[in-house]
């Protein structure tokens, strides 16, 4: 009593705005009484801080206090702004404030924060139909990928919505989950209640050939086949052109068309096939010369359209056309077309102008002749002198792939006759070790016409390179990540075009491709002689077109696996797999590098890595398992595989290897476990399918298995085991 009195006295001695704020924090009834006493509502600047207090105070959860404040908010809620309003309403219970929320939504129908809360509460209150409707409105109003995706996911907890039924499936060579979420929202906006199936990425041939696959099981009425040209034809990234590209492309297109035909014949679905488009094709004249990548890709698209014209219910979606039209005012701005006779929208004018610049440079013959490159943090991530040849970032997954793709872009320039040179401050032995032996290095020693790996000034090195190659210093382009080096070269050699690479290496390739300075109207035979013979990194057979069974297809992939212990070169990758693999991971035990090193040092632990390659290329280290010998048992501690090789039976090869290890150790039985997470449900029956017996099952779904040894765990017949 005494305390409350002193509170009250203290409050009365404060200015009005502060009085309200304190009241809002301490006593809701007092707050409302004070507002009533004021007669008119204070301005938003006075009320705002008080309402923020209200939002942060704990009594909003208490029933007794809620009634007067709810009544107040019903009348004056529009005074509240954005987050204050959302925070406040989030803190109340769904039951008390749902009506209030609906009222606010009538006035702000596109308020993303309110829609988010409304969807949550509708679900909590069991109004699933309303929840669906709020999620659709949220996805359309907000429009960001993150929101569209989370709205899509939130529907999993709801009963299906009413609406016109549609089963739609995505078969893609790349990640289309977010595209599927956008598609779901747009379909709902026009009254569909879609069921969406997204096949694991890059499994198109498997889905099509397996009559029990998801695409058939889903009963899809519409199948989107989204195969990226850059996945189908890695030659595009390397800058391959002419007949080499034409021939590889024709085979790939025929295989794709055969897959689509098989799908159309085995289902009643309408099949919409993305046309082929490559992010690597530029706007310069060389890519659109008769043998250029753009021209060849156009031929391939004509070939695809012609092959699919004979397939009932198959249609091609012109991707370039569809994406150019995205958003009003990009490719076409109708108002400017009517008023000013502009047939091209202002949105595309800068990129057209940039395309003209490229042709101008080519026509004038003023292209640069030589690209000079730094090494550390330019051709690879990290510093070889500090991180060592195995510690640098360079590979086929991120981080590392951004440097590899940058190197491929440079190789593409070399293929059209641009000379390459190195200018790096390094110990030559450290750098050459990487250039000669790193498995993911694209540019080997013979790619470079001049090499300066030393501790000299980069300015002097550039002068030396121009002299050695007998070209003008103004025909050099110098790329480096280091701002100090770049500034020095700009200052002392302004004739050299100096390009400082951006901080984010994901932008390296785009920075290179944006340079208009390497254009020509055509590649001459002279240019080609200069360039080293391109080694085809793979040979594509026409097998896929003719093999109809899954086994036949897998056989045709020519999968080779190499099983090995963990070594210094693979340790980092193993730790990465342990911590990043979610889907194909039986126990999801996360270990640090120190943990794995301790396991390696313990003779009872057996760590096995698996590298896989097939005729399309090297997948690298994609699977890992660890087992522990405990008396006469062999317990499988970790068993996981990267999702990019799912569906090829590689896991069976790894399991067979573990069994052999266990038997060699004299184990009488193998123990294993499936520990469920939110993300690994696809492997819950993995051990059941490989002859293990269930030993126990726990309430959380964890299942423990046992296999008596010796046992037959068959090696998949289509996989060849390689020894190192």
């Amino acid at each position: 009593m005494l305390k409350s009195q002193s509170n009250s006295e203290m409050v009365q001695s404060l200015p009005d705005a502060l009085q309200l704020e304190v009241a809002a924090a301490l006593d809701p009834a007092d707050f409302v009484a004070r507002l009533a006493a004021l007669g008119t509502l204070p301005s938003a600047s006075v009320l705002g801080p008080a309402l923020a207090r209200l939002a942060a105070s704990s009594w909003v959860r208490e029933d007794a206090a809620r009634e007067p404040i709810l009544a107040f908010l019903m009348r004056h809620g529009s005074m509240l702004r954005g987050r204050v309003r959302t925070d406040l309403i989030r803190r109340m219970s769904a039951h008390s404030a749902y009506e209030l929320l609906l009222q606010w939504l009538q006035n702000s129908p596109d308020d993303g924060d309110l829609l988010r809360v409304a969807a949550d509460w509708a679900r909590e209150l069991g109004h699933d139909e309303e929840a669906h409707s709020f999620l659709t409105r949220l996805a359309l109003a907000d429009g960001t990928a993150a929101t569209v995706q989370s709205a899509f996911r939130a529907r999993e907890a709801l009963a299906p919505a009413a609406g016109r039924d549609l089963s739609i499936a995505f078969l893609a060579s790349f990640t289309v989950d977010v595209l599927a979420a956008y598609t779901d929202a747009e379909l709902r906006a026009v009254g569909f209640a879609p069921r969406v199936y997204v096949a694991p990425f890059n499994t198109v041939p498997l889905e099509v050939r397996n009559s029990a696959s998801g695409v058939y099981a889903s009963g899809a009425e519409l199948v989107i086949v989204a195969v990226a040209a850059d996945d189908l034809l890695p030659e595009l990234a390397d800058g391959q052109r002419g007949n080499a590209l034409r021939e590889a492309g024709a085979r790939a297109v025929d295989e794709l068309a055969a897959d689509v035909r098989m799908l159309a014949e085995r289902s009643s679905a309408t099949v919409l096939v993305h046309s082929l488009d490559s992010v690597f094709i530029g706007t310069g004249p060389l890519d659109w010369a008769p043998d250029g990548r753009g021209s060849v890709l156009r031929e391939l698209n004509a070939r695809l359209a012609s092959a699919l014209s004979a397939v009932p219910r198959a249609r091609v979606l012109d991707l370039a056309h569809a994406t150019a039209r995205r958003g009003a005012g990009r490719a076409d701005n109708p108002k400017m077309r009517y008023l000013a006779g502009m047939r091209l929208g202002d949105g595309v004018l800068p990129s057209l102008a940039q395309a003209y610049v490229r042709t101008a440079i080519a026509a004038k013959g003023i292209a640069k002749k030589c690209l000079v490159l730094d090494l550390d943090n330019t051709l690879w991530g990290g510093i070889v002198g500090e991180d060592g040849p195995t510690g640098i970032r360079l590979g086929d997954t991120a981080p590392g792939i951004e440097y590899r793709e940058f190197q491929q872009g440079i190789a593409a320039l070399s293929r059209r006759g641009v000379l390459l040179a190195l200018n790096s401050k390094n110990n030559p032995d450290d750098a050459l070790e990487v250039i000669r032996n790193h498995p993911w290095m694209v540019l080997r020693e013979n790619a470079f016409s001049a090499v300066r790996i030393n501790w000299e000034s980069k300015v002097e090195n550039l002068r030396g390179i121009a002299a050695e190659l007998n070209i003008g210093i103004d025909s050099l382009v110098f790329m480096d990540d280091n701002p100090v080096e770049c500034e020095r070269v700009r200052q002392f050699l302004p004739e050299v075009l100096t390009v400082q690479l951006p901080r984010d290496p994901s932008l390296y390739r785009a920075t290179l491709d944006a340079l208009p300075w390497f254009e020509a109207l055509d590649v001459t035979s002279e240019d080609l002689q200069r360039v080293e013979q391109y080694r085809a990194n793979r040979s594509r057979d026409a097998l896929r077109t003719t093999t109809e069974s899954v086994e036949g297809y897998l056989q045709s992939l020519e999968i080779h696996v190499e099983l090995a212990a963990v070594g210094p070169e693979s340790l980092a990758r193993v730790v990465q797999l342990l911590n990043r693999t979610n889907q194909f991971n039986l126990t999801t035990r996360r270990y640090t590098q120190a943990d794995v090193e301790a396991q390696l040092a313990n003779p009872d632990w057996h760590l096995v890595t698996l590298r896989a390659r097939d005729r399309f290329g090297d997948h690298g280290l994609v699977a890992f398992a660890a087992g522990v010998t405990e008396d006469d048992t062999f317990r499988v501690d970790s068993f996981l595989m990267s999702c990019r090789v799912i569906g090829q039976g590689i896991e069976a090869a790894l399991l067979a290897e573990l069994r052999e290890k266990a038997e060699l150790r004299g184990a009488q039985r193998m123990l294993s476990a499936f520990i469920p997470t939110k993300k690994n449900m696809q492997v819950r029956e993995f051990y059941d399918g490989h002859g293990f017996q269930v030993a126990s099952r726990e309430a959380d779904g964890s299942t423990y298995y046992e296999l008596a040894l010796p046992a037959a765990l068959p090696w998949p017949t289509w996989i060849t085991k390689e020894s190192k």
Partner: protein
Amino acid sequence: MTAPEQVLARVFNVPAQDLRDDSSPDSIATWDSLAHMMMIVELEREYGISVAPADALDVKSVGAVKQLLTTYGVSW
């Protein structure tokens, strides 16, 4: 400037006040690999930065996200 918690709350569809510095994929059910990428996209949009892949993969908690933003010169 918007607080990182507000951005993450939107991405993972959880109340911002439930996010603590040690909140991570282990404690937030909706924080899977795809949502992780969406988070990076949203942070880049919100703060006008471009995050290197090596950094993007490293941030596995709310605290780590804030640390990352600081190294990219973002304050809020």
